[in-house]
């Protein structure tokens, strides 16, 4: 009697424990099941004809410092920065630790270190965003650490770290790396077919890339394409075209979709502004900020393989994208770049240029030889600007429409200088040519 009762009790305990264990599994498993479905959805999305986010948000210039000199490098057959990013996806990068902050002299040493490759973003991003772009979990949890340079020493075997540096506050972070080898990157450096000698100078308004000697750069030509207003309204408004109000005033067309959405297309300047008054949530973190910006960009334009994030202003919730050619930004006739996106509680605004680069065509223009950066500074001083006025300096491509063929643009290199918050070509500031005579 007693024995059988014991068995019943033991079995009961086992049954209860099994049910608890099973329910636990089901709970966690349904979670996994749901996550599995999400992954499926994102897979289907990346299968579409889309440029991945880590191409739009990627470093635009790559610099290599050998034993003696520092060079800006580029390979016109293969984008070095995208290739290095691909290599880095296999690295195991630990969480970054602060080395120093606000020490300009030390910072200069870091960004001028020998045998080091550095990739420079046009604007600072956070380690969390980098973790997302590289699909690296240990970086993903880190929030708030901002940087715009990634530095890797390719020769020093004892230094198993990558360094992240931020031009804005001279912060340097160091992160341990495993499962990495310098070999593939060294190979990419050797394959570069553009090597321009540079010096990185810390000035009042940040770090400037100075070209020590006059530089010879190719001109490029592209077939450009734009969309009709109707294509934007179908994509941006809910496809239902009823209730669309159109007004026209001196070539400025406005399309209103009720009170909620509005597209203004200026046919004189080829610029459009789209406002979505229903999109009133402001991104809560840096990653969401960039992800939502990226989503808006791919909704807006089809041909974005040359587009890069140019500036991210977290304070104003404002993103700027610009087209790049061979590692240099293109300055169109507009002030803001190619696409500007702003989030606010009143709704999001997208301001963009209709025309985009589509197909490269051989250029029949000769290469341009630009003055050294030092000569540019001298010219600016002669024109009455002090060095402290210069907020930014960049070699970029000027957008020139061909008179006889408006489907083709010529891109010609020149110096662009930012003074008083405005980017303008050197010619426009000084009435002098930036070309070496």
């Amino acid at each position: 009697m007693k024995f059988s009762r014991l068995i019943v009790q033991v079995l009961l305990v086992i049954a209860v424990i099994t049910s608890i264990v099973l329910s636990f599994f089901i709970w966690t498993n349904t979670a996994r099941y749901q996550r599995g479905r999400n992954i499926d959805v994102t897979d289907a999305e990346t299968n579409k004809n889309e440029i991945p986010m880590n191409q739009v948000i990627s470093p635009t210039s790559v610099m290599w410092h050998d034993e003696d000199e520092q060079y800006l490098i580029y390979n016109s057959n293969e984008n070095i920065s995208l290739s290095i990013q691909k290599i880095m996806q296999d690295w195991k990068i630990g969480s970054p630790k602060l080395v120093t902050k606000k020490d300009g002299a030390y910072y200069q040493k870091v960004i001028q270190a020998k045998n080091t490759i550095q990739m420079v973003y046009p604007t600072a991003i956070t380690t969390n965003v980098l973790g997302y772009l590289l699909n690296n979990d240990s970086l993903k949890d880190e929030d708030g650490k901002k940087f715009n340079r990634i530095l890797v020493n390719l020769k020093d075997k004892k230094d198993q770290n990558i360094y992240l540096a931020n031009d804005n506050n001279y912060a340097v972070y160091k992160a341990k790396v495993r499962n990495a080898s310098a070999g593939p990157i060294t190979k990419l450096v050797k394959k570069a077919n553009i090597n321009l000698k540079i010096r990185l100078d810390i000035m009042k308004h940040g770090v400037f890339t100075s070209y020590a000697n006059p530089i010879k750069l190719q001109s490029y030509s592209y077939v450009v394409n734009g969309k009709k207003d109707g294509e934007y309204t179908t994509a941006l408004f809910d496809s239902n075209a009823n209730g669309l109000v159109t007004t026209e005033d001196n070539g400025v067309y406005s399309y209103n979709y009720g009170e909620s959405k509005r597209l203004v297309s200026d046919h004189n300047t080829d610029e459009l502004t789209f406002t979505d008054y229903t999109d009133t949530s402001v991104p809560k973190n840096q990653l969401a900020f960039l992800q939502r910006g990226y989503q808006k960009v791919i909704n807006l334009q089809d041909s974005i393989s040359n587009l890069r994030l140019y500036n991210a202003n977290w304070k104003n919730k404002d993103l700027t994208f610009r087209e790049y050619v061979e590692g240099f930004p293109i300055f169109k006739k507009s002030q803001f770049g190619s696409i500007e996106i702003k989030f606010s509680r009143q709704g999001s605004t997208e301001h963009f240029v209709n025309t985009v680069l589509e197909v490269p065509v051989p250029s029949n223009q000769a290469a341009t030889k630009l003055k050294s950066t030092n000569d540019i500074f001298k010219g600016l001083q002669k024109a009455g600007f002090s060095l402290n006025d210069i907020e930014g300096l960049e070699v970029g491509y000027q957008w020139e429409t061909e008179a006889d063929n408006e489907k083709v643009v010529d891109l010609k290199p020149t110096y662009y200088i930012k003074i008083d918050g405005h980017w303008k070509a050197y010619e426009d500031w000084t009435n002098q040519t930036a070309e070496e005579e």
Partner: protein
Amino acid sequence: MDFKRIEVIFLIVFFSLDIFLFLSFRNSQQLVSSTSTNTSTVAEMRKRNISFGSLDSKSGYAYYLGSQPNDDLEENSSKLQDQKVEYEEANHTLASTLDSPISVTSSNRKKIMDEFIKKEKNILYGKNYKYAPQLSSQSQMVYVATSNLGDVYDKTNQLIFTISNGEVLGYTQTYIRSMIILHERQSIKSEKDVITNLYANSEIPNNSKIAYANLAYTKLLEAKGSTIYIPVWFVTIKNKDSKVSTTKKVNAFTGNIIKSSANGDSSYNAQ
């Protein structure tokens, strides 16, 4: 005694609960495994009697290429022997009639013509061309230009032999001296992406065979006196009953299906 009965009832209840939980646990796991995507499309295609070899899922890289027209064929046409040649400036095309036709059979024609084009007195720049069975037919043998960048399937860079009654009568030829890379390499769609996409767009009928799937450069447009080429997947689908073949073209950069216009030129359609 009562307490013991309660224990037994509890035991039964919990056991049945365990069985229920176990079953639902297994169910949810099966749901997980059924959510895999692309492989199922491939299985579905096989089920619909569409046959094809193994599909390469590796996506590679390709370029935008550019070339400028030249008249090298005309300038060197005096090197050709035992044939009557005509040159058309507008299309930069050389047309030749052989003095003595070459007899071929469908089984040996590749071997004979491969040998023939190697000699400069027969064909100019013959070493730059390669036989392309995908573009050829009973009455035409098409040789395409090939280089380290890849093959070019385009009438601006081709060698076509005309065959009639088992005899090669002559040929037309176009030639491009060199292609230049216009832009850094870009990733392209894999063979598997392209074929599953064609299937999803109802471009591959049931009961058919994918005879060829080749990646080659083809003309996209002309601008500023140059011709621009892009990589395109040429997929030939053969109906198993009617034996009729159709070739679909897919832009390898974007994955978009290129619709051919009436004059045979692939119309420019990058979106």
